[in-house]
Every structure is written in structure tokens, then in C-alpha cells.
């Protein structure tokens, strides 16, 4: 009788908690599957682990609420005396270990894939500054700075009186986007000129710290053309929240013509670059 009760209430609790969990997932946001093979792998890992812990959670909480419902003094429950069970303890040590191994195997495979930066067709050096990025295309000899666009920058000032909702891509738009070709294996070399920054575009599936005195590597291969937005993700001072990353992926042909266009305007670029570098020095001097 007691066991039957526990079973029925247990199943009911499992159902209730599963519905609650489902609605909690349904109303919320989830990670993006992104646009690279790696970001999809990460998304699947994320969903797998989330699925496993959700099932464990539902079972554990169902057992707990069954107990809370049935084994209460107000229902006349009399406390049992047991205080250990070697068999139960072995089971709930061994099963979690097996589950963890099952998670570790795919995680290891994806990580090894990420760490292999060989075979790059295009190398881009990313340098973090307080508070903008510099991009250098090592093969094509292009380099420029990329900072928060003017419209966001004026809207974000305290007491600006501009509703951020009226600004396109508020805080996620830059003056010069990082233009890259699709379906091309691109290697990024990341470093910093002042403090530690971190370069992140969620759709690419990873972030990597840009650290002064170190060069970090990472790679990507973007499959779909589009504009992908991210932000600096390592606290880097007062304007940490205002140094977005915007990647524009275009077809390899469009990319070639963009490169050609940059070379024509390179003289102009060089002047603009000197200006913005001077401006950087000024702002960082003012900031420190």
C-alpha cells in the first residue's frame, strides 16, 4: 500500500515537474546554433548536457516532492529508522560517473577539433584596445580599427535623451565591420595592446581572450553570408560594454572585390588610421 502510494504520487510529481520545466524552457531564450560547424557542435553539446541534467533534476525533485507530500507529520507519517544503504550509495556513485563519461567523450572530440588551427586559408590578427578593435588581414595587407558606431555612441551617453530602441542595433554596430569570406577556413590571432579583452561572436561558437604579451589562436569557417554581432566579454575598463564586434560574412567573390576596393582607398585609410590611433592614445590617457 505504502509503495503503491509512493509510486502513484511519484509519477504525478514527475509529470507536474516536467510540465513546469518545459514551460521554463519554452518562455526563455536559448543558445544560438550559429553558422559554423563548430558552433553547431557546441550547440549540440549544450543541448545534450542540458537534456541530461534536466532529466536527472526532474527525477530527483520528483522523489523529493513525493516525500514532501506523503511523508509529512500532518498526514500522520511515522519516521522510519534507516540511515544508510550501501547498495543505494554504490548505485548513485557509479551511475553519475557513467553519465559524466558519456558527456566527456563528445566534449573531448569537439575540443580537439577547435584546438586544431591548421590549414587556414586566411589569417586575421585581432588586437584589443581600450575600447576598440584593430583588424589586420595578414595576406591582403588590409588593416583598420573598428569601434562603436556614432549613433549608438551618442545614444548611450548618460542623459542623452535618446531612446535606445530607436537606434538600429544599439551597442552592436561598429564603424568598420570585419568583412570575411564564407566557406573559408579563417585563423584568428588575438592579442591586446593594453588590458585583457575577449573577442566573442556567439554565432561563431567561441570567445577567446586577447591578452597583452600573448598571441592566442582560434579558427572559424562561416557557412552562411550575413552580419554576426558580438561584444567584448572580458571586463576591460569603463567602456567595456561599448566595444562591439561585427563580422560581415560575404561570398568569396564579393570578398575579393571588397579587398580590391580597400587597396584603392588604402592611402585614405592610412590617414584615417593614424587619426584614430591618435584618438585612441588620447582616450586611453584620459581614461587611466
Amino acid at each position, binding site marked *: 500500500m505504502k509503495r503503491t502510494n509512493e509510486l502513484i504520487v511519484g509519477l504525478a510529481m514527475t509529470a507536474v515537474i516536467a510540465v513546469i520545466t518545459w514551460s521554463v524552457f519554452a518562455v*526563455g*531564450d*536559448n*543558445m544560438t546554433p550559429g553558422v559554423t560547424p*563548430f558552433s553547431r557542435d557546441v550547440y549540440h*553539446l*549544450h543541448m545534450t*548536457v542540458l537534456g541530461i*541534467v*534536466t532529466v536527472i*533534476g526532474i527525477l*530527483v525533485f520528483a*522523489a523529493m516532492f513525493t*516525500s*514532501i507530500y506523503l*511523508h*509529512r507529520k500532518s498526514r500522520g507519517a*511515522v*519516521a*522510519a529508522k*534507516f*540511515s*544508510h*544503504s550501501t547498495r543505494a*550509495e554504490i548505485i548513485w556513485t557509479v551511475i*553519475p560517473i557513467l553519465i*559524466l563519461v558519456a*558527456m566527456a567523450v563528445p*566534449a*573531448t572530440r*569537439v*575540443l580537439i577539433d577547435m*584546438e586544431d588551427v591548421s590549414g587556414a586559408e586566411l589569417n586575421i590578427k585581432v588586437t584589443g584596445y581600450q575600447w576598440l578593435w584593430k583588424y589586420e588581414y595578414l595576406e591582403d595587407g588590409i588593416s583598420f580599427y573598428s569601434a562603436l558606431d556614432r549613433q549608438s555612441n551618442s545614444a548611450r*551617453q*548618460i542623459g*542623452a535623451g535618446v531612446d*535606445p*530602441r530607436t537606434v538600429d542595433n*544599439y*551597442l552592436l554596430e561598429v564603424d568598420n565591420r570585419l568583412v570575411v569570406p564564407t566557406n573559408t577556413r579563417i585563423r584568428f590571432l588575438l592579442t591586446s595592446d593594453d*588590458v*585583457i579583452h*575577449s573577442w566573442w561572436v556567439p554565432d561563431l*561558437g*567561441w*570567445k577567446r*581572450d586577447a*591578452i*597583452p604579451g*600573448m598571441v*592566442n589562436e582560434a579558427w572559424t569557417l562561416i557557412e552562411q553570408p550575413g552580419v554576426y554581432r*558580438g561584444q*567584448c*566579454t*572580458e*571586463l576591460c*575598463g569603463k567602456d*567595456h*560594454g561599448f566595444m562591439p564586434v561585427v563580422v560581415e560574412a560575404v561570398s568569396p567573390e564579393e570578398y575579393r572585390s571588397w579587398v580590391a576596393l580597400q587597396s584603392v582607398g588604402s592611402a585614405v585609410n592610412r590617414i584615417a588610421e593614424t587619426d584614430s590611433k591618435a584618438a585612441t592614445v588620447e582616450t586611453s590617457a584620459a*581614461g587611466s
Partner: protein
Amino acid sequence: MTDTTASTDHHDEHPRGLARWLFTTNHKEIGTLYLVFSLTMFLVGGAMAMVIRAELFQPGLQLVNPAFFNQMTTMHALVMIFGAVMPAFVGLANWMLPLMVGAPDMALPRMNNWSFWILPFAFLLLLSTLFMPSGGPAGGWTLYPPLSLQGGNSFAFVIFAIHLMGISSIMGAINIIATVLNMRAPGMTLLRMPLFVWTWLITAFLLIAVMPVLAGAVTMLLTDRFFDTSFFNAAGGGDPLMYQHIFWFFGHPEVYIMILPAFGIVSEIIPTFARKPLFGYTSMVYATASIAFLSFIVWAHHMFTVGMPLGASLFFMYATMVIAVPTGIKIFNWVSTMWRGSMTFETPMLFAIAFVILFTIGGFSGVMLAIVPADFQYHDTYFVVAHFHYVLVTGAVFAIMAGAYYWMPKWTGHMYDERLGKIHFWWSAISVNVLFFPQHYLGLAGMPRRIPDYSVQFADWNLVSSIGGFAFGLAQLLFVWIVIKCVRGGQKATAQVWEGAQGLEWTVPSPAPLHTFDTPPVVNDAIAGHEGKLA
């Protein structure tokens, strides 16, 4: 069995007023000082959190400039970790450990006084930096160089304050180890000790091991900032990453310093209100010790994105995942303790149950964060903020609240107002989830942490989170009122207080007289409340 009433005669000189508190060497009074200090700092740190949530209430900058926002996030963490959570646990240890092991006082009462009285000065120093021309620390509580070195001269005050907190913690830890190892009553064998004593004993060893590491790390920051050394300056041949390794070698055990005593508290409360002995006592002790050991070999999981060698990333991933095993054992043991018990749901039990559920959710996101490739997405986003607030607020803080309600009748001699306690619980438990659960969504949607303003796509959940934050903050003022009310009066508490309570602390009258166990009690399995099989 113990003579607690005739024990006041050889301590007849007891100063009154301020001097009583300044010069006290009594573990109960020092415990009270710690707890009051902790509650004060909880409100100060909470006020900073309110500033943060108010600024993040909607997109755009409305209230504070980004530089001050960064000071708020940095100070909120330092105040909550070193000012609220850690002193609360030390306060509970001071009050309860001697009562639980049948000792007349802590082993080193004068040092006990000193280790408390350092703290108010340390925090005055720390908080005073907010009013200095260069402002408070703004580089995050982790103080990563080179950013933290860009701070003004107030940085020296911050480092001195951290040194003081470290000294205080080390002395507190020495005292606890000395008390637990030397002052136990006859028959109180190690495996008869209450779990709260066990978890604190292990925590105290962690503190002694890692506080000097933090002191070393911040001293190197100090000399880099003011004496032209280059420990962490790449231009001078140093390595900014070395700081992160040293810091997190302190930082990860520190995380467990803030959760192990919470495990202990919950392991006291659940058996009491389930009226059933703790399930798997010895496995709880071994699980605690395993978690403590593992805490020393997982530090780099805080820095998966810094560009570590593949082998290192894999090692730290596997080691981190292993922690789920002993932690899982604890959760299963608590559920099994409740299973077929005879439960009642007074406020301490409600907080303890909420702890088990919500800490488990924090543990789940912890397992997810351990998966290195997925961490490349989660790292430094609001997902991490949600994770550590689940383990620290609904984990550590809820356990402290549970402990406070559980032992308050023993401290004051009065029952707290049960109706208000329940209101406080439900209000806190609901609002804290409104506050922190949406932060998982924000992180997964791509919102980085430590930003004062955000893109409009994050507006809705930030709004929800802020509303939850204000509600949770308000609920804690109710807690302050409940404490004041309980100190001033209320229904008289019996010695045992709770029907199912077992252990030495429930054999002394409520309120516990200033001096207890002048004659040591004799302990057997019946008093310990569980079988110490290996005893």
C-alpha cells in the same frame, strides 16, 4: 548532565556597554558580533546590488556612469564574499561549534576577539575607497591585471583591506581547528561530530591553505602598481596570466569555503525536521573531504578562454566534472533523509529544502560550464552570473538564513515569529528565482557580464530580473525586522527548541547562558543523534 547554571561565578567581572563587546573573549558574544557584522555587510552589499539592478532596469544609461557601475560590481562582490557570507559562517561556527562538541569556549579566545575586530576596520578601509578621488576598485573582484593596475592610489587601501580580511580568516580558521581537534567532550569522537562541525573543520583547512596565496597574489599587484616590479606586466617580462592562475588557485577553494559550511547547516536541519537520522553520515564526511581535495585541482576551469594547451583544458574539464559525483552523493543523501521521515515545515526546513533544490540547479549549470567547448559560449556571460548566484545566494545565503532561523531560539531564548518567517521565506524564494533565473536566458542569448548598458534585445529579461531583485532586496529588510523582534521578545523557547532536534547544543537552556559546558558532558550515540560506526 551538565552544570550550566553554577558556572558564572568565576567570570563575575563582566564589563558593560561598548567595552563588553570590545574586549569580549566569549565565543557566544563574538559569534553575535560576527553575525551582526555580517548582516550589516549583507545590507551594504545588497544596496550596491540594487544600484546595479536599477541601472540595468532598462537599456541606456540612466543613473550611474560606467566607471561607477564597475566600482559597484567589484565592491558588491568583495563585500558579499568577504563581508557577508564568510563572517556569517564564522559567526555560526563561533556560536555553535563549542556547543556542538561540548567545549566551554573556543580554544583561543583572545585571538578570537582580534580576528573579529580586524574586520570592521578592514571594511571601513575598503568602503572608504569609494569616497577617494580615484574611486573604489573597478576591475572586478578578481582584480585581474593589467586592468586593476590602472586604478588610482586607492588601490593600496583595497589591498591592505584584503590583507586584513585574510589575516582575520586565517586566525578564525586556526581557532576552529584548535577547538575541534582539542576541545571535544569525552565520547565526542570525530565520527560522532555533527556534520556542521565536520564541514567547518575541512573548510578551516582550506582557508589556511589558500588565504596566504591570495595575500601573495595581491602583494605582487601592490608592488607592480607602486614599486615598479613586473610580475604581471608583459612589457617588463611578466605574465598577466600568471596572476589568474595564482588567483584561482585561491579562488576555487574559496568557492567551497563558502559552500561547505552551508552543506553542514543543511545536514543539521533536514534530519531535525524529518525526525529521522541523517542518511549516509560517513559518506557525507567523505564527500565533503573529496570536494575539498578536488577544489585544489580545478582552478583553471575559470579560465578556459585564455588559450591553454589542449591537455590542460582536458585535465581541468575532467577534474571539474568529477566534482559532480561527491556533490550528487550529498543531494541524494538529503533526499533519502527526507524519504519516509515525519516532516514538518518550519522556516528553517523551508529554507533548507529550497537550498537543496536551488543549489542543485546551480550545480547543473556548473556541470554545463565544465564542458570546455560549451564554456567558450557561456564564459563571462550572464549564464555564469546566474550560475554563481544560484550557488551563492540560494546556496550559501539560504543555508545561512536557514541556520539563523534554526538557532535563533537558542541564541535569544525566544521563538521568532513563525508567520513572518514563512512570509520571508516565500517572498525570498519566489523573488530570488525571478531575479536570477532569467539571467540564464540572458547569458545564452549573448549578454556579457559586467556591462552597464545592453542592446535592446536583452531588455525584457533584464526588466524581469531587476523587478525580482528589488523584491528580493525588500524581503531581506523583513528578515532584519524578524531578528529584531525575536531578540526583543516572543514565545519562550525550550532547551530542545525543535521536537526532532538532537545533539549537545540542544541540552543547554535557551538562551544559552554565557558559559556552558564548564564540566564536559559525556557523549554517546544517543546524544550524537546518529551512529558513529567507526567511532
